[in-house]
């Protein structure tokens, strides 16, 4: 482990990358200028290339490993989409370029809006949210704007099932709401009685995903929608799990009023080690006036343009300086156009096939399913409660040991309501051989857990580092390299 700073030597430069000379800035008042240069690394171009190339090899990724991270839809990211988005004509376009010079990119975005509407059963789409959580923010802000537009100011509460992703409650709070959690039954469905009790004139809306993060389809969704609507609330669909049902069922048809999609999941745009993603929002008729700007419009002559507050005066506004993560949207457009009607209709079906197959095979080799009576959606949960109790190994130990076997770990300890759980999402782009190899690894680790639990507790054994001390990381904060203080060379 060497930091780029540790390759640095005062006065070295990657000279090909900067202007050949440095003009004096004599016209600028001295007190506005920097007196000491920042201690950025001073390294050669080869050192940079070598450092970051070597670092990259320390990552697991879809391109190198099976990555069945539940709720994250780690499927193949087509290289063609990357090629397209990296076309110089796209990359060099300034966000404020004249619309005459931007008809190409605008037409892609417009078509993407239309395809997303069709796939979700919604009436309007805005592509501007930069990720799922920002889509949630936009959605809840629209719910708020809706109630306010009707002068319905009593609604201060958002209902959220306990299984929900952390962004849902966090978003509700960012939008000024309080959160009330709704319990989930042992079969994975929402507790309808509890829901009914919770609903009231203070209810602004309900946020949920379907299939839920329990990996099962909420069967009472029609009923839930009726109840929430009857109470005057709106239904928010967290589209992180849209992959499960793409082409099969549409949130709009289930009764949802507003949703976001994670294009970096369902539409196969790469996660980039943490982003950028894209979280477009779709809305039912009654929320159309509130969509965040900008949106792409098209007039009768087929001329595209950005619509803003002049066109959508009741908009909740802008969510970022420009137009969202266009480079990501172009990749999603590529994906949608390539799959087209037939391909898109298959996504949910095969994502479910892989999940159900893997679930059955894991059950067969001895793992306990969280919802054994249910079909898996695109993902499913196993619980290692028994193994933890009898052998003293945790879900995290399993996760770490999987890394030694060359598989990225599933999501651990989420959803919170299932003890010692692994949330497993294989996605539709993995082959049967890969799934079978994963089952073999899990089986073998389970044997190890029985015979030699310490092997799991000490895992991983084969990676660049052994298990890391999180507690120390948080206690003795080291967030920033400081010159002269380097811990190691």
């Amino acid at each position, binding site marked *: 482990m060497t930091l780029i700073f540790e390759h640095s030597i005062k006065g070295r430069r990657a000279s090909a990358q900067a202007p050949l*000379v440095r003009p004096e800035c004599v016209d600028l008042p001295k007190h506005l200028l920097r007196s000491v240069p920042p201690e950025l690394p001073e390294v050669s171009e080869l050192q940079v290339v070598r450092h970051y190339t070597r670092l990259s090899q320390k990552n697991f990724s879809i391109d190198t490993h099976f*990555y069945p991270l539940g709720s994250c839809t780690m499927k193949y990211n087509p290289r063609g989409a990357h090629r397209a988005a990296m076309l110089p004509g796209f990359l060099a376009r300034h966000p404020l370029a004249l619309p005459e010079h931007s008809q190409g990119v605008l037409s892609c975005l417009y078509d993407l809006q239309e395809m997303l509407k069709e796939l979700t059963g919604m009436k309007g789409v805005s592509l501007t949210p930069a990720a799922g959580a920002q889509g949630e923010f936009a959605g809840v802000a629209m719910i708020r704007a809706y109630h306010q537009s009707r002068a319905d100011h009593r609604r201060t509460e958002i209902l959220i099932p306990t299984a929900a992703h952390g962004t849902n409650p966090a978003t509700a709070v960012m939008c000024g709401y309080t959160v009330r959690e709704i319990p989930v039954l042992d079969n994975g469905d929402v507790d309808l009685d509890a829901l009914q009790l919770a609903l009231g004139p203070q209810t602004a809306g309900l946020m949920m995903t379907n299939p839920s993060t329990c990996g099962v389809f909420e069967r009472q969704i029609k009923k839930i929608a009726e109840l929430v609507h009857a109470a005057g609330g709106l239904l928010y669909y967290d589209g992180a799990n849209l992959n499960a049902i793409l082409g099969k069922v549409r949130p709009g048809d289930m009764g949802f009023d507003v949703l976001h999609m994670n294009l970096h999941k369902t539409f196969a745009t790469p996660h980039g080690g943490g982003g950028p993603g894209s979280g477009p929002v779709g809305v039912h008729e009654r929320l159309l006036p509130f969509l965040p700007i900008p949106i792409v419009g098209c007039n009768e002559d087929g001329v595209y343009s950005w619509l803003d507050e002049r066109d959508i005066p009741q908009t909740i506004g802008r969510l970022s300086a420009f137009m969202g993560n266009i480079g990501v949207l172009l990749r999603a457009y590529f994906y949608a156009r390539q799959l087209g009607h037939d391909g898109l209709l298959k996504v949910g079906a095969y994502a479910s096939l892989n999940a159900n197959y893997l679930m059955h095979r894991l059950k067969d080799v001895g793992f306990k399913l969280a919802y054994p009576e249910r079909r898996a959606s695109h993902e499913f949960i196993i619980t290692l409660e028994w193994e933890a109790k009898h052998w003293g190994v945790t879900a995290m130990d399993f996760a770490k040991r999987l890394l030694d076997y060359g598989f990225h770990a599933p999501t651990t300890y989420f959803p919170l309501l299932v003890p010692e759980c692994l949330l497993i999402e294989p996605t539709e782009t993995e082959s049967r051989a890969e799934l079978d190899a994963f089952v073999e690894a899990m089986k073998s680790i389970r044997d190890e857990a029985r015979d030699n639990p310490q092997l799991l507790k000490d895992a991983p054994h084969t990676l660049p580092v052994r298990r890391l001390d999180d507690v120390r990381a948080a206690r003795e904060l080291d967030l920033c390299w400081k010159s002269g203080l380097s811990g190691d060379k």
Partner: protein
Amino acid sequence: MSYIPHTHEDEQSMLRSIGLQHRDQLFDEIPAELAAPALDLPESLNEMQVLRLLSKKAGHFDERRCFMGFGAYAHHIPAAVWDIVGRGEYMTAYTPYQAEASQGTLQVIYEFQSMMAMLTGMDVCNASVYDGASGLAEAVLMALRLQKKHPNPRVLVPDSVHPWYRQTLRSIVSQQGVQICEMGHNAQGQIDPSYLDEEIGKGAAVLVLAQPNCWGVLDDVDHLTDQAQKAGIKVVALVNPTSLALLKPPGAWGTRGADLVVGDAQPLGIPLSSGGPYVGFLACRLESVRQLPGRLVGRTVDLSMRPGFTLTLQAREQHIRRAKATSNICTNQGLAMSAATIYLSLLGAEGLARVAAVSHQRMLELTRLLEASGISPFFAAPVFHERVFRLPVPVQPVLQAMAQRGFEAGVDMGSYDVALQHGLLVCTTELLESEDIRDYAQALAEVIREIQS
């Protein structure tokens, strides 16, 4: 056309092992009446066809000479940056939750945090928010959390802050009832200390200070910072990171330095790409780090006491703290952040200073040439690398005519602010050689002459 690897036999045998005949049965828990109708979607295409389509749509914008800025800046991006960042190991990894299998991404983040802390003169920088504008909203919300005493907090935002940053700020923070107060500018395009005094009188919790401001103008940030902080106001610095190679870092503004620093790292190796993905950053003092939104990586040790990296202080984040998190942000702009890290490594302090200085120098050259043609700046104060010029004719036809000549000539300020009617915001960077500056000045003079005649 799909990326599904199964053959028909695979599918059949997999279904058999689940005990089903057809894959539709996988959906038998879903009420039949919910089944999707026939969908109107385009036909499948292969990669060749979509690439041909998109190559046409991309066009040749890259060949135009770009004099536009206003929040998005065209700089040279070293070829190595996206060659490396585009490697599958970086591009197709998830957020590094499994630290041991993500040391690559984690170390890049740690290095980014370090570089940005140095550039801004702060202790800590997070590993990205969506962009500068939403980052500004996060910064203001964070500043308010640091200001617990203020019950109904007022946030002072000069109108020299980019209008779309102000709009974004408003749409986000207004959800929580935060009040934004806009402050005017003087004839120099700067914040007059007297305006600030007036606002302080009304009581305020946070001041946003943009340096340079959206017209390129530099303010006397030392004085303003001291003035605000003396009144108990938190100062949020909004900066262009390229400029920080030359300009005083916010950590050193005034006596105590700005409290928070926010901005968009787009100029550091991120392509313009019609407006995104860019990458916001937010830096603070160590004592405020528990209020910082977004991801943070810490250096720690493994079981063998070897150094390694891991996400830390996750109790700030939504996946742990849920409703009590500092922000709802989850997926951020990781890859763009990695690109900025590599960019900064390649440029170093001296390289970045050259980029900044040449960008500035080109604006001096342009100003000189335009003034010689009778076109003078709207504001007299010193600028970094963009400036509003007052045209003798309406801006829109000028933009059109310049476009005909292959120039993206700038941004029409009148469409954002009536007071800036006839104002053309022009930006210069190191991408433009002196010859381009001369061509531009000559073309602009001609175009204006044509329009006038």
